[in-house]
Protein backbone atom coordinates (compact mmCIF):
# COMPACT_ATOMS: atom_id res chain seq x y z
CA UNK A 1 0.00 0.00 0.00
CA UNK A 2 1.49 3.35 -0.99
CA UNK A 3 1.82 5.90 1.81
CA UNK A 4 -0.50 8.81 0.91
CA UNK A 5 -0.80 12.07 2.84
CA UNK A 6 -3.38 14.72 1.84
CA UNK A 7 -3.88 18.00 3.66
CA UNK A 8 -5.66 21.32 3.11
CA UNK A 9 -4.43 23.88 5.60
CA UNK A 10 -3.89 27.59 6.24
CA UNK A 11 -0.49 27.06 7.85
CA UNK A 12 2.82 27.01 6.00
CA UNK A 13 4.42 23.58 5.36
CA UNK A 14 8.03 22.41 5.67
CA UNK A 15 9.05 20.39 2.62
CA UNK A 16 12.09 18.92 4.36
CA UNK A 17 10.01 17.66 7.28
CA UNK A 18 7.34 16.27 4.93
CA UNK A 19 10.05 14.45 2.95
CA UNK A 20 11.38 12.89 6.16
CA UNK A 21 7.87 11.71 7.10
CA UNK A 22 7.28 10.28 3.62
CA UNK A 23 10.56 8.32 3.73
CA UNK A 24 10.39 7.19 7.35
CA UNK A 25 11.05 3.45 7.52
CA UNK A 26 10.98 3.00 3.73
CA UNK A 27 13.95 1.18 2.17
CA UNK A 28 12.87 0.94 -1.44
CA UNK A 29 12.92 4.65 -2.32
CA UNK A 30 15.65 5.83 -4.70
CA UNK A 31 14.36 9.35 -5.14
CA UNK A 32 11.80 11.92 -4.13
CA UNK A 33 10.65 14.50 -6.67
CA UNK A 34 8.93 17.60 -5.36
CA UNK A 35 7.16 20.71 -6.49
CA UNK A 36 6.44 23.77 -4.39
CA UNK A 37 4.09 26.34 -5.93
CA UNK A 38 4.81 29.92 -4.90
CA UNK A 39 2.76 33.17 -5.12
CA UNK A 40 4.57 34.90 -7.99
CA UNK A 41 4.73 38.72 -7.87
CA UNK A 42 4.30 41.15 -10.73
CA UNK A 43 1.75 43.67 -12.07
CA UNK A 44 1.27 45.08 -8.56
CA UNK A 45 0.06 41.76 -7.08
CA UNK A 46 0.16 41.73 -3.27
CA UNK A 47 -1.47 38.46 -2.31
CA UNK A 48 -3.76 35.62 -3.34
CA UNK A 49 -6.86 34.55 -1.47
CA UNK A 50 -7.29 30.77 -1.86
CA UNK A 51 -10.73 29.22 -1.47
CA UNK A 52 -11.77 25.56 -1.63
CA UNK A 53 -14.77 23.23 -1.41
CA UNK A 54 -14.30 21.37 1.88
CA UNK A 55 -14.94 17.67 1.41
CA UNK A 56 -14.85 17.58 -2.37
CA UNK A 57 -11.37 19.13 -2.48
CA UNK A 58 -9.88 16.50 -0.20
CA UNK A 59 -11.59 13.66 -2.05
CA UNK A 60 -10.26 14.93 -5.43
CA UNK A 61 -6.76 15.25 -3.94
CA UNK A 62 -7.03 11.67 -2.66
CA UNK A 63 -8.17 10.42 -6.09
CA UNK A 64 -5.30 12.23 -7.81
CA UNK A 65 -2.79 10.82 -5.30
CA UNK A 66 -4.11 7.27 -5.59
CA UNK A 67 -4.11 7.49 -9.36
CA UNK A 68 -0.48 8.73 -9.39
CA UNK A 69 0.62 5.94 -7.03
CA UNK A 70 -1.02 3.29 -9.22
CA UNK A 71 0.09 4.70 -12.55
CA UNK A 72 3.73 5.38 -11.63
CA UNK A 73 4.27 2.67 -9.00
CA UNK A 74 5.02 5.17 -6.27
CA UNK A 75 6.10 4.11 -2.80
CA UNK A 76 4.13 7.10 -1.54
CA UNK A 77 3.17 10.71 -2.10
CA UNK A 78 2.23 13.82 -0.15
CA UNK A 79 0.01 16.69 -1.29
CA UNK A 80 -0.49 19.76 0.86
CA UNK A 81 -2.51 22.73 -0.44
CA UNK A 82 -2.86 25.93 1.51
CA UNK A 83 -5.99 28.11 1.67
CA UNK A 84 -6.61 31.64 2.91
CA UNK A 85 -4.57 34.77 2.20
CA UNK A 86 -1.05 34.14 0.87
CA UNK A 87 1.35 37.01 0.12
CA UNK A 88 3.82 37.17 -2.76
CA UNK A 89 6.70 34.73 -2.21
CA UNK A 90 4.67 32.41 0.05
CA UNK A 91 4.29 28.70 -0.77
CA UNK A 92 0.84 27.56 -1.93
CA UNK A 93 1.13 23.88 -2.71
CA UNK A 94 3.55 21.01 -2.09
CA UNK A 95 3.64 17.73 -4.01
CA UNK A 96 6.15 15.02 -3.06
CA UNK A 97 6.45 11.72 -4.93
CA UNK A 98 8.71 8.90 -3.72
CA UNK A 99 9.68 6.09 -6.10
CA UNK A 100 12.37 3.51 -6.68
CA UNK A 101 13.66 5.44 -9.74
CA UNK A 102 13.76 9.12 -10.53
CA UNK A 103 11.85 9.13 -13.82
CA UNK A 104 8.71 7.74 -12.14
CA UNK A 105 9.03 10.30 -9.35
CA UNK A 106 9.37 13.20 -11.82
CA UNK A 107 6.51 12.05 -14.04
CA UNK A 108 4.20 11.49 -11.09
CA UNK A 109 4.90 14.95 -9.68
CA UNK A 110 4.05 16.60 -13.00
CA UNK A 111 0.95 14.40 -13.33
CA UNK A 112 -0.27 15.40 -9.88
CA UNK A 113 0.36 19.12 -10.41
CA UNK A 114 -1.46 19.06 -13.76
CA UNK A 115 -4.51 17.35 -12.28
CA UNK A 116 -4.52 19.51 -9.14
CA UNK A 117 -4.51 22.64 -11.30
CA UNK A 118 -7.44 21.52 -13.43
CA UNK A 119 -9.60 19.28 -11.27
CA UNK A 120 -9.20 20.01 -7.56
CA UNK A 121 -11.78 22.61 -6.48
CA UNK A 122 -9.61 25.55 -5.44
CA UNK A 123 -10.09 29.12 -6.62
CA UNK A 124 -7.65 32.02 -6.45
CA UNK A 125 -8.52 35.69 -6.09
CA UNK A 126 -5.73 38.16 -6.76
CA UNK A 127 -5.32 41.24 -4.54
CA UNK A 128 -3.41 44.18 -5.99
CA UNK A 129 -1.67 47.10 -4.30
CA UNK A 130 -4.21 49.57 -5.66
CA UNK A 131 -7.05 47.81 -3.83
CA UNK A 132 -8.38 46.04 -6.93
CA UNK A 133 -9.07 42.33 -6.75
CA UNK A 134 -9.96 39.77 -9.42
CA UNK A 135 -10.65 36.05 -9.64
CA UNK A 136 -7.95 34.21 -11.57
CA UNK A 137 -9.01 32.85 -14.97
CA UNK A 138 -8.11 29.25 -15.81
CA UNK A 139 -5.20 28.95 -18.27
CA UNK A 140 -5.53 27.01 -21.52
CA UNK A 141 -1.99 25.63 -21.13
CA UNK A 142 -3.01 23.96 -17.85
CA UNK A 143 -5.80 22.12 -19.66
CA UNK A 144 -3.39 21.16 -22.43
CA UNK A 145 -0.82 19.89 -19.90
CA UNK A 146 -3.48 17.75 -18.22
CA UNK A 147 -4.80 16.40 -21.51
CA UNK A 148 -1.49 14.65 -22.27
CA UNK A 149 -2.19 12.20 -19.41
CA UNK A 150 -5.53 11.02 -20.87
CA UNK A 151 -7.90 10.23 -18.04
CA UNK A 152 -7.19 10.57 -14.33
CA UNK A 153 -7.77 6.90 -13.61
CA UNK A 154 -6.13 4.84 -16.35
Amino acid at each position, binding site marked *: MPRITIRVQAEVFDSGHETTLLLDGQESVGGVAAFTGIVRGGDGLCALELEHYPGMTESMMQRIAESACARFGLVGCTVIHRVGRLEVGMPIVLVLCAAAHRSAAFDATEFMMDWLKTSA*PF*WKREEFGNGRSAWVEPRAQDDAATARWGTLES
Partner: protein
Amino acid sequence: MLRILYFAWLRDRLGRSGETLDLPQGARSVQDLVDQLRARGGEYGEIFARPELIRVAVNQSFAAISAPIAANDEIAFFPPVTGG
Protein backbone atom coordinates in the same frame (compact mmCIF):
# COMPACT_ATOMS: atom_id res chain seq x y z
CA MET B 1 -34.11 19.41 0.70
CA LEU B 2 -31.49 20.13 -1.95
CA ARG B 3 -28.36 21.74 -0.56
CA ILE B 4 -27.05 24.28 -3.11
CA LEU B 5 -23.51 25.71 -2.82
CA TYR B 6 -21.90 28.64 -4.66
CA PHE B 7 -18.15 29.27 -4.81
CA ALA B 8 -15.74 31.99 -5.94
CA TRP B 9 -17.25 34.71 -8.16
CA LEU B 10 -20.66 32.99 -8.21
CA ARG B 11 -20.85 33.42 -4.44
CA ASP B 12 -19.61 37.02 -4.69
CA ARG B 13 -22.19 37.97 -7.33
CA LEU B 14 -25.09 36.07 -5.75
CA GLY B 15 -24.20 37.41 -2.29
CA ARG B 16 -24.53 34.01 -0.64
CA SER B 17 -22.47 30.84 -0.27
CA GLY B 18 -25.46 28.52 -0.53
CA GLU B 19 -29.07 27.83 0.19
CA THR B 20 -31.41 24.93 0.78
CA LEU B 21 -34.27 24.34 -1.58
CA ASP B 22 -37.03 21.79 -2.03
CA LEU B 23 -36.44 19.74 -5.17
CA PRO B 24 -38.48 21.79 -7.68
CA GLN B 25 -41.63 20.12 -9.01
CA GLY B 26 -40.70 17.96 -11.99
CA ALA B 27 -36.96 18.67 -11.71
CA ARG B 28 -34.95 15.61 -12.71
CA SER B 29 -31.60 17.01 -13.80
CA VAL B 30 -29.12 19.77 -12.98
CA GLN B 31 -30.43 21.49 -16.13
CA ASP B 32 -33.91 21.69 -14.58
CA LEU B 33 -32.45 23.29 -11.45
CA VAL B 34 -30.40 25.74 -13.56
CA ASP B 35 -33.60 26.73 -15.38
CA GLN B 36 -35.35 27.40 -12.05
CA LEU B 37 -32.47 29.50 -10.75
CA ARG B 38 -32.26 31.45 -14.00
CA ALA B 39 -35.97 32.22 -13.77
CA ARG B 40 -35.30 34.22 -10.61
CA GLY B 41 -33.82 36.98 -12.80
CA GLY B 42 -31.24 39.50 -11.60
CA GLU B 43 -27.77 38.04 -10.99
CA TYR B 44 -29.28 34.52 -11.05
CA GLY B 45 -30.77 35.26 -14.45
CA GLU B 46 -27.46 36.49 -15.82
CA ILE B 47 -25.26 33.76 -14.37
CA PHE B 48 -27.48 30.75 -15.09
CA ALA B 49 -28.14 31.95 -18.63
CA ARG B 50 -24.47 31.13 -19.32
CA PRO B 51 -23.95 27.56 -18.12
CA GLU B 52 -20.73 27.37 -20.20
CA LEU B 53 -19.09 29.54 -17.51
CA ILE B 54 -20.14 27.20 -14.72
CA ARG B 55 -18.93 23.85 -13.45
CA VAL B 56 -21.23 21.56 -11.49
CA ALA B 57 -20.69 18.98 -8.77
CA VAL B 58 -23.42 16.63 -7.54
CA ASN B 59 -22.67 15.16 -4.13
CA GLN B 60 -19.08 16.36 -4.37
CA SER B 61 -18.33 14.76 -7.75
CA PHE B 62 -18.03 16.67 -11.02
CA ALA B 63 -21.21 16.24 -13.04
CA ALA B 64 -22.57 17.22 -16.44
CA ILE B 65 -25.44 19.66 -16.58
CA SER B 66 -27.55 16.77 -17.81
CA ALA B 67 -26.81 14.74 -14.66
CA PRO B 68 -29.84 13.52 -12.69
CA ILE B 69 -30.59 14.98 -9.28
CA ALA B 70 -32.67 13.71 -6.38
CA ALA B 71 -34.03 15.08 -3.12
CA ASN B 72 -31.27 15.62 -0.50
CA ASP B 73 -28.50 15.94 -3.11
CA GLU B 74 -25.71 18.48 -2.60
CA ILE B 75 -25.39 20.53 -5.81
CA ALA B 76 -22.45 22.94 -6.16
CA PHE B 77 -22.00 25.61 -8.82
CA PHE B 78 -18.59 27.20 -9.35
CA PRO B 79 -16.24 28.58 -12.01
CA PRO B 80 -13.45 26.47 -13.54
CA VAL B 81 -10.91 25.70 -10.84
CA THR B 82 -7.63 27.63 -10.52
CA GLY B 83 -5.69 26.02 -7.69
CA GLY B 84 -2.22 24.54 -7.58
